[in-house]
């Protein structure tokens, strides 16, 4: 093994390492590194994610805000009933939720995840660019 072989190399990996280490170094074409870095730092993937997240989140946000304004008293009554039921000996309870609200919440969650993914990727690409 050469002096630059990794210390933690496994016995079965030695032959492959020796084979690859025997390949003579070759200069990369001019501008190769810049081209690779340019592709890595392309912001388009992040841009479309932000647009998709915004397009999906806005209708759901508007719907939920309208529901909160229009039916806020129902939500308050539900919270009160839940607290009252928790301290009572009721054996049964009735529950109903509008499915459109469930749909809006699910879509908002998906949009938030897309936005989270975009915001996680962006700093990583910026670091790679440096």
């Amino acid at each position: 093994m050469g002096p630059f072989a990794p210390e933690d190399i496994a016995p079965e990996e030695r032959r492959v390492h020796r084979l690859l280490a025997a390949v003579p170094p070759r200069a990369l074409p001019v501008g190769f590194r810049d081209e690779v870095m340019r592709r890595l730092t392309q912001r388009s993937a992040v841009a479309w994610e932000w647009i998709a997240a915004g397009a999906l989140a806005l209708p759901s946000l508007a719907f939920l805000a309208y529901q909160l304004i229009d039916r806020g008293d129902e939500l308050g009554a539900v919270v009160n009933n839940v607290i009252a039921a928790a301290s009572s000996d009721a054996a049964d309870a009735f529950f109903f939720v509008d499915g459109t609200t469930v749909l809006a919440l699910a879509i908002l969650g998906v949009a938030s995840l897309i936005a989270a993914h975009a915001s996680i990727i962006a700093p990583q690409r910026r670091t790679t660019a440096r």
Partner: protein
Amino acid sequence: MKQRDALLVLGAVVVATLVAAILFAGSLASASSADRGARRPGIFFDPRNSPPPIRTLVEEQRGAPIVLQPIVPLQRGLADTARDAAGYLLVLLGTSAALVLAREQVVSSYRASLGGWRTQLRVVGTGLAVIGVGASAGALAWIVFLGSLATVRAGPLGVPAALQFGLGVFSVVVVVAMLAGIVGFAAEAWRLGDALIGLPWLRRFAGVPPPLIALLGATLIYIAWQVPYAGTVAVLLAFAYALGAVVTARLQGSPQAVSAH
């Protein structure tokens, strides 16, 4: 922006427009008006009274503008489906969240569960052992805690406050276990989706992105959960596998394990 990205944006905008129309129709259809009587609440919980009866489709259509009236049946059907599928949506959201926010942990759990049937058995066995340890430790902790309440009664806290404290600590422990379970579940769903895609007549879909494969696996686990009786066993095994994958990944990644090899 590449052509693929532009298509994705276009798709998202189309979906968003459809969703906006459905949500708008839903808002208008459920709005109250004098000629249609009392509306059904958007959310309702009461231990004593049942919710008011749901409006007929014709009544809801009457409340929407003419342009949106054809959408109202679609909105009604979608709303009913979404209400029934809230649990499934939660499973999909949890899996996606783990894949996005805890990607490294999911990937290491996925790698730890790679292997033949012996590895799979080992992962399930580890998970069952972890569940056993957790249940046993939890029960013993409660016994010790309830036994010590007699001492606390004489102190400044009193029994109710001490019980609330105990419940709070227990809830935190359960949440931590659930977080580990979600990470493991995402890895498990990914493995299951991989196994499904590996079947001879499904190999042509091998190019499907891993997140979609994981969501496919999560869907299968959710369907298995819905099977009467067998669903309980399936969920227990799924939870055991998820915890086992996380613990195996943790053990494989620890410095002691590396030095032992």
